């Protein structure tokens, strides 16, 4: 089943009508009266800056965008239907492949949903390890995003290479823990599959201690750069009301000035035990989205610091917790966490058999992408590229 084009479906239209009623939608940019012909350009699916196979059908007046239609589904692979045909444990590795940068958080959200559904308690140590892995994943995601965003701004590789240097370090940690760099498949119902060794924890501690210096270096190069500021400030402004209305979550919502963070709101796992802050932006433009992520990384470092300090001993996984052949009682559950890209949630309905009868993913990349046209209208092609970059999508998650 191909995902229908959002502009043609009720979903997108309802949201837009609501937006209009509130006077929120960006007014369609009026082409200059009597100007030359409009130019239709298909940005993608093989465009270098669409972060995967994604297409934007844009109509240009000169270089200004008059209309923009996102087209996706090139990477669709029946994830949700597969989930309904697979056992609960069997779906775990599939979730790795949603947002393939953040298998750790995908795993956790899925595990959370199943644990809710089946009422499985999680061991203390595993809760802490989950926090460590999720925050490492957040560092990795935001670092990559910043690098890609700067590449989209036209830096010839330097920030991206800096970012990838750090990403490699985190991936090395993931690999030594789980055996895989990106598709980690670490979480189990009630705990984690593997227990981090003392050496692994020491290596993580070293990484965390050094990460602040990397962020300082990166920000010294870019955050105050005149060209970066000129390119990103005031571009792709997302008003808070539209953001809430459209269901935007994650750093993108917080950049618009809404202090909504599931780690605080839901307080899932052991997050209430940690001391951290939630940075919010004011203008909701590309620069705010970039800076909010940079500041979030500093908070992640603080969380990691505390989690590594307080990490308790004990089992990582209760051996009595059932993994294979899990048959939860009939019912439904929705597990959600604050992923690096926003609220990632799994909605599961059980009829008492070994497979869920309904398996639904709430993908932050997909929901955040729905406001793309509103953000881009009236801006130039170059702006559309960085606006898309600042939304932070992974096509594996958008298309599922």
């Amino acid at each position, binding site marked *: 089943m191909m995902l229908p084009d959002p502009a043609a479906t009720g979903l997108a239209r309802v949201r837009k009508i609501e937006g209009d009623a509130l006077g929120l939608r960006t007014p369609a940019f009026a082409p*200059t*009266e009597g*100007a*030359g*012909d409009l130019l239709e350009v298909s940005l993608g699916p093989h465009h270098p800056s669409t972060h995967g196979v994604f297409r934007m059908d844009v109509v240009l007046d000169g270089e200004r965008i008059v209309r923009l239609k996102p087209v996706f589904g090139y990477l669709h692979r029946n994830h949700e239907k597969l989930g309904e045909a697979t056992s609960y444990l069997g779906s775990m590795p599939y979730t790795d492949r949603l947002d393939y940068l953040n298998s750790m958080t995908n795993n956790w959200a899925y595990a959370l949903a199943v644990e809710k559904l089946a009422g499985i308690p999680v061991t203390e140590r595993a809760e802490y390890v989950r926090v460590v892995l999720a925050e490492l994943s957040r560092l990795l995601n935001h670092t990559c995003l910043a690098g890609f965003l700067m590449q989209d701004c036209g830096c010839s590789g330097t920030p991206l290479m800096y970012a990838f240097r750090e990403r490699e370090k985190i991936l090395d940690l993931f690999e030594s823990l789980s055996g895989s760099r990106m598709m980690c498949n670490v979480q189990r119902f009630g705990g984690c599959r593997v227990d981090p060794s003392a050496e692994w924890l020491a290596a993580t501690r070293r990484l965390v201690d050094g990460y602040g210096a990397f962020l300082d270096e990166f920000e010294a190069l870019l955050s105050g750069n005149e060209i970066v500021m000129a390119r990103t400030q*005031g571009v792709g402004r997302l008003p808070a009301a539209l953001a809430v209305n459209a269901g935007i979550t994650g750093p993108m919502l917080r950049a618009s000035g809404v202090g909504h963070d599931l780690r605080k709101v839901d307080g899932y796992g052991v997050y209430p035990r940690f001391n951290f802050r939630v940075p919010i932006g004011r203008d909701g433009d590309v620069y705010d989205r970039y800076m909010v992520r940079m500041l979030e990384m500093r908070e992640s470092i603080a969380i990691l610091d505390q989690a590594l300090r307080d990490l308790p001993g004990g089992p990582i996984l209760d051996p009595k917790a059932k993994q294979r052949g899990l048959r939860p009682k009939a019912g439904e559950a929705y597990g959600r966490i604050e992923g690096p890209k926003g609220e990632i949630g799994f909605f599961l309905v059980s009829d008492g058999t070994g497979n869920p009868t309904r398996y639904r993913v709430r993908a932050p990349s997909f929901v955040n992408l729905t406001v793309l046209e509103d953000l881009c209208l*009236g801006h130039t092609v170059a702006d559309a590229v960085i606006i898309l970059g600042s939304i932070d999508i992974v096509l594996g998650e958008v298309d599922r």
Partner: protein
Amino acid sequence: MTTLLAVLALICLAPAVAAVLVRNLIHSALLFVLAWLGLAAFYLALGAEFVAFAQALVYVGGVSMVALFAVLLTRPGRTDLLPPPSAARAVGGLAAVSLVASMLASSLFWSRLPSMEPTAPIPLRRLGELLAGPYLVAVLLVGLILTVALIGGLLLAAPRRPAEGADA
């Protein structure tokens, strides 16, 4: 001298004629550029070094760019140009041909002008002195005209956008 000039004259004339005849608007504009470059070479051969470079700079770097920009901004289609009504074309062509004939004839055959010995080229410094001395008023006037033209061009071509304070 005459041979060189004749060759250059051909190099200059051929693209100009082609420019008028080709259908494609962009080709036409580019051929005009070629003709102007040929003319610059012709000036160089005449010994007017400064004028030749000025010609190249202004026509190739300025006028042609503006023209091409205008072509792109007013793009009616990828290849422009419906042929004009054939009657008009014929009349125009005939008028032009008769003009060519009469002017060539008058300038060449009935010309009483004797061909003088070429005067020495003016050194650049002398040219500067001329421009800063006797022709200073004219230089200033030309500057004024250029400024006025620039502002006028801006006003004419500026899109009348509904005032919305978008970054321009």
